[in-house]
């Protein structure tokens, strides 16, 4: 064989091996976290592992539409994950435990199910056992109907209630507020000389006393980002996905593995007094923490911190009560 032929063959082989090997090598050395709509698989991988205190470098990319990335119960800003682009995030965890990462963009009907976990292991400190949430210690059945037997004719006003409350031996404590529904508080006021409308006003005052403007603002922000897509901007259960959820019915639920028996139904209407005035903050806490209830409601326990849930609950009641002029 002539030298030129041999040299050409070697060069061509090198070029082909390089053309095949280099991209494959580089590709295998750069693990990406892929985001896809839940129907197409959600996060991949959806379980990440890291040691306490060690930085976790993530390269996130979306394979379809715009997604977002955030870690539940952690004070880290959400980042956008754009189609075909790579977003880099570095996270360091102080405590061991299982953290949930989730999508923060309304990417599709099952956006809420687009979650994954980060297992943070540490040999020095064991995960601290979580204390039972209030709805568990109160032994509430969050799946049971909780309609208020009667509701006010007009929207109760905390401003009017405040004027009426001065003479009353009211329990304004958080314990009372969290463990009672507005209707129960209304019944507790039945031994006073107030009219029904006035009693509802006092309940509104009692509820307002257990929140602050900041708390309501935080609750509103969280509600707008996470809840309004289904429950609607004004709490009426008419969010942008509500019609789709209804239309999708069982078929939407059945695209999700392990959710065969789930039934989609219209999202809860927070502007319906029968429903909300019969629910205690502890009950709502349970519903938000755990989700389910035979509906498509996701579980938020892994994502919202406890205070954030109380803020959210306070905001949900504001669909019923007039707190400020």
């Amino acid at each position: 064989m002539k030298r030129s032929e041999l040299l050409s063959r070697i060069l061509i082989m090198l070029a082909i091996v390089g053309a095949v090997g280099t991209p494959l090598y580089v590709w295998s050395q750069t693990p990406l976290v892929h985001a896809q709509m839940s129907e197409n698989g959600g996060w991949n991988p959806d379980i990440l592992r890291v040691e306490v205190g060690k930085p976790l470098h993530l390269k996130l990319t979306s394979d379809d539409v715009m997604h977002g990335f955030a870690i539940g119960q952690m004070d880290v800003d959400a980042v956008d994950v754009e189609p075909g682009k790579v977003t880099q995030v570095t996270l360091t965890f102080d405590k061991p435990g299982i953290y949930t990462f989730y999508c923060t963009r309304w990417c599709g009907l099952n956006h809420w199910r687009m979650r994954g976990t980060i297992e943070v292991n540490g040999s020095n400190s064991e995960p601290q056992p979580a204390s039972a949430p209030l709805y568990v210690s109160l032994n509430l059945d969050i799946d049971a109907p909780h309609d208020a037997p009667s509701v006010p004719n007009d929207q109760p006003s905390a401003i009017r209630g405040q004027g009426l409350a001065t003479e009353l031996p009211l329990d304004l404590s958080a314990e009372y507020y969290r463990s009672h529904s507005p209707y129960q508080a209304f019944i507790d006021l039945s031994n006073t000389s107030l009219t029904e409308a006035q009693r509802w006003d006092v309940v509104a005052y009692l509820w307002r006393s257990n929140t602050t403007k900041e708390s309501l603002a935080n609750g509103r922000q969280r509600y707008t980002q996470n809840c309004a897509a289904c429950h609607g901007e004004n709490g009426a259960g008419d969010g942008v996905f509500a019609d789709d959820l209804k239309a999708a019915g069982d078929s939407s639920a059945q695209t999700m593995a392990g959710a065969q028996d789930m039934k989609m139904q219209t999202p809860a209407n927070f502007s319906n007094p029968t429903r909300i005035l019969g629910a205690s903050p502890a009950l709502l806490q349970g519903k938000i923490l755990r989700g389910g209830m035979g509906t498509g409601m996701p579980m938020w326990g892994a994502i919202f911190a406890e205070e954030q849930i109380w803020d959210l609950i306070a905001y949900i009641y504001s669909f019923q009560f007039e707190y400020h002029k």
Partner: protein
Amino acid sequence: MAKIELTRGPFIKNALKSRYPQLAVFVIMLVGYIFAILAGLTGTPVGSRNFSIVFVWIAWWAILILVAVPFFGRGWCAVCPIPLPGEWLQRGSVLAPHDKRPKWLNLRVPKIFRNIWLQNISFLLLALFSSVLLTSPNITGIVLAVMLFGAIGLSTIFERRAFCRYLCPVGGFIGLYSQTAPIELRIKDKQVCATCEGKPCYNGSQAGYGCPWDVFPGGLTRNTYCGLCMECIRTCPHDNIAINLRPFSADLAKPSTRLDEAFKAFIMLGSAMIYAGVLLGPWGVLKDAAYNVGTNAWFIYAVIFLAIIFVILPGLFTLGILQTKSILPLKRRFASLATALIPIGLMFWVAFSLSFVLTNASYILAALSDPMGLGWNLFGTANAAWQPMLTSVLAPAQTLALVGGLIWSARTAQKAANEVKVSSIPVIVYCLIATLVMLWLLL
């Protein structure tokens, strides 16, 4: 305008006679091609950010249809990497001289396939799935790989470049439109070829390989099947092969009489119009139907697509021809007059391609900086925003291309009509109506 022989200059001639410049380009192309396959298979499924989609369907397509085909004819085939591995395998060498003993089966392609019907079918197959192909990197990767390995497989069974000549979905229309290009490979003196012993340009010699395209250069009158591989320049012992600069559409003066080529003209004309409607038009239902391969809507779309190409367009054309009187058989008139559709077909593709290439060209910058979709930023352009280019000149350029194409086709129709001795008016009216429809679709 007279022809200008480009190979008269020693620089061009030596560059073509030597194997190394072409080999260097081949190897670069092959590396790019393999990279496109891998990027398609492993990279992001987001088409607009994947190297395979952006470089094949935007960059390569733009160069092919806007530059290579109109100005260099089969210039792309001269550097296309697809046949190379198969050809090297077939010859058992990269550079070494011709070996008489065949390495593989070396069969002759059966006569029934020695036309461009298979290319018509392979193009239509890709065309029917084009909405998915053009947007899904993994499908593009698979199709590119199938073509590469298909070419290798055919090289081991058949002699010469069977894939290029008879199967390549792109090669068919490049050949058709290369007749309009101002470049040609021709012999200088017929007499020299007639007396040449052994015909090394076709049979090969120590200096090079016999025509890979199964063409005898001495008989070349059209560009259609000459792949500009330059082998005959290397093998001709009499220095009788030239690359000429010539007037545009010189080959169209002698219209083809072949039905496979006539239908290629209809396939290309119809596809350009359908693409303009589906990909650029405002009809969401059409886009959905074209995209959702396998659904009932897609089957209806496919049937309509094929009906337009094989029934409606040729049918109306035939009705037009029937208005003219001639002693020649209808088939002959049909095939010859269809030559007039070549210029408007090419210009339809130019106008259509201008639209989506200028709209999507900005993706090239991002894909260059991050070809694997791994978050790189090689040239600082990974986050270049999508922005349509030259929007103000798009519509005038498209109009110019379409109207120019119409005039060009009208001239071609007159020449073709002269050949078969019929009136050119029905064909010109046909081209006018097609151009008006295309103008409406694009503007």
